[in-house]
């Protein structure tokens, strides 16, 4: 499982304050904690309260790059913010994210190509959130078609089926899991799949358990990557063990430790 740490997000009070005060230490500590806990990449989001997202994202990227060379997922719904972040990114970059709307695809796919970045594609459009598997597949097909038209390698595309909170859309969980499986058969070579995991447990009081259970079930459906809280060590243990069960890693008595060392 490719793990993208979600904690550098202005939505969290400590990070929001650090961005406002330009406190590098807090951001760098947060970056390293996530990497040392098993994150393969870090999400970077200025948060809704940022008044100058164009410069804030650059400051975040530069601050994080001082301490790690892990890939950075530039996270914003605004194209200009992503573009601004890409200007200073030296590590590998992931664009988080485009929707299936053509005005976004037209701009973000060329941007991903130009910066040799991977691209996260949400199966959502201006018409709203999909209600079932078929709608998700339709939006996924539109994103893949746009990638192929623009000569962007589908292997660098991560499709996100949009995970909804289990207490809001319980009936959709199965549809989401099946979408993860079926995204893979839309094209050859196939796209990768990703979820923003924490959303599934939003508003519940057993968040960690729900996150962990959903992630393992999604892994069994072929999920490639997840944006999650890497400091939840039981969650990471479960992700590593899922890799083991799926024969992606060779067993040894210290396999949990071995994975974190890699």
């Amino acid at each position, binding site marked *: 499982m490719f793990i993208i740490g979600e904690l550098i997000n202005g939505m969290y009070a400590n990070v929001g304050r650090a961005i406002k005060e330009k406190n590098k230490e807090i951001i760098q500590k947060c970056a390293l904690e996530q990497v040392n806990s098993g994150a393969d990449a870090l999400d970077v989001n200025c948060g809704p309260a940022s008044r100058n997202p164009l410069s804030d994202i650059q400051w975040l990227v530069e601050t994080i790059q001082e301490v790690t060379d892990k890939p950075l997922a530039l996270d914003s719904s605004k194209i200009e913010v992503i573009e601004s972040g890409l200007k200073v990114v030296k590590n590998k970059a992931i664009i988080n994210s485009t929707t299936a709307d053509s005005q976004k695809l037209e701009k973000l796919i060329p941007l991903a190509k130009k910066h040799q970045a991977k691209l996260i594609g949400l199966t959502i459009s201006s018409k709203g959130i999909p209600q079932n598997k078929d709608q998700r597949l339709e939006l996924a097909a539109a994103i893949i078609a746009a990638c192929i038209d623009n000569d962007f390698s589908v292997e660098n595309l991560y499709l996100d089926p949009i995970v909804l909170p289990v207490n809001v859309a319980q009936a959709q969980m199965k549809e989401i899991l099946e979408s993860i499986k079926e995204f893979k058969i839309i094209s050859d070579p196939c796209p990768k799949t990703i979820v923003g995991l924490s959303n599934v447990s939003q508003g519940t009081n057993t968040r960690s358990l729900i996150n962990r259970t959903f992630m393992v079930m999604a892994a069994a459906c072929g999920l490639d990557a997840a944006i999650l809280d890497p400091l939840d060590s039981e969650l990471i243990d479960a992700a590593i063990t899922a890799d083991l069960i799926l024969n992606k890693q*060779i067993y*040894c008595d*210290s396999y949990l430790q071995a994975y974190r060392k890699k």
Partner: protein
Amino acid sequence: MELMLEKWAGAVSVLNIGATKAEGGTRAKSIQIGGEKTLPFLSAEGALAHKPVIAFEVWDVPPYDYTNGKDALAWAEICAKDYAAELICLRLQGSHPDSGNKSAADQAQLVAQFLKKVSLPLVILGCGDDEKDNQVLPACCEIARGERCLIGSATQDNYKTLAAAVLADGHNIIAESPIDINIAKQLNILISDMGLPLERIAINPTIGALGYGLEYAYSIMERARLAGLSGDKTLACPFICFAGQEAWRAKEAKDAGIEQGILWETITATALIQAGADLLVMRHPKAIEKVKSYINELSGS
């Protein structure tokens, strides 16, 4: 027709055996093994780095099976001069309580003599008795300090003493597992936890000779190598394979005349090279000659 080429994320680590004067030792040259970025001899896919090399196995006491009638030092000198050996593997079998019970001091002296008379990089093996090896091998490590030998074998139940000695005196270690990939991985983690980097470990996967489990050893080596190339650093160490030891144990090698024995050793060794062996420890000069030309032919040199 288009070739389907695989792209690997990882590479086998490179192990340096023998330190020259410039590197703080007294060896005439140093030997590198490993470094492959793809499966054996798939040069279209990636760099193969270092060719497999062969170490001549020399015993401190007359061997049980394959005999040449020479004492250890004289035989090693012949290997170097007449057979252009690249490496010598000295097996200190005489330390074993049942094979002479030579003391740590005596064995260290023998190693010192070897280092003086033979300028090739050296692999040093214990006798297989844990208690005795834990006395003898640290003494040998110390007397060979700075020569960057490859010393073995560490096992899952007995690795700490040897790993500490190897670390202290600047050598490399052989990590031996009983044809078991899970233990191979675990042992590498345990050794690296002691501070000895993975780049100084050679995996002895334990092999079987032709007709005695060769296919099983092959599949374990292949699986470990695929994991290593896929990015699992704990399995991306070069392999050392004791082809001579295993081949000459087979009754087909012992009982049907020397020529068949040589063939048995040759075929065992060549199959292991296909499985990814980086360092072969072999016994008969004729078998070694055949395997060397096989390596050169496949590497196009």
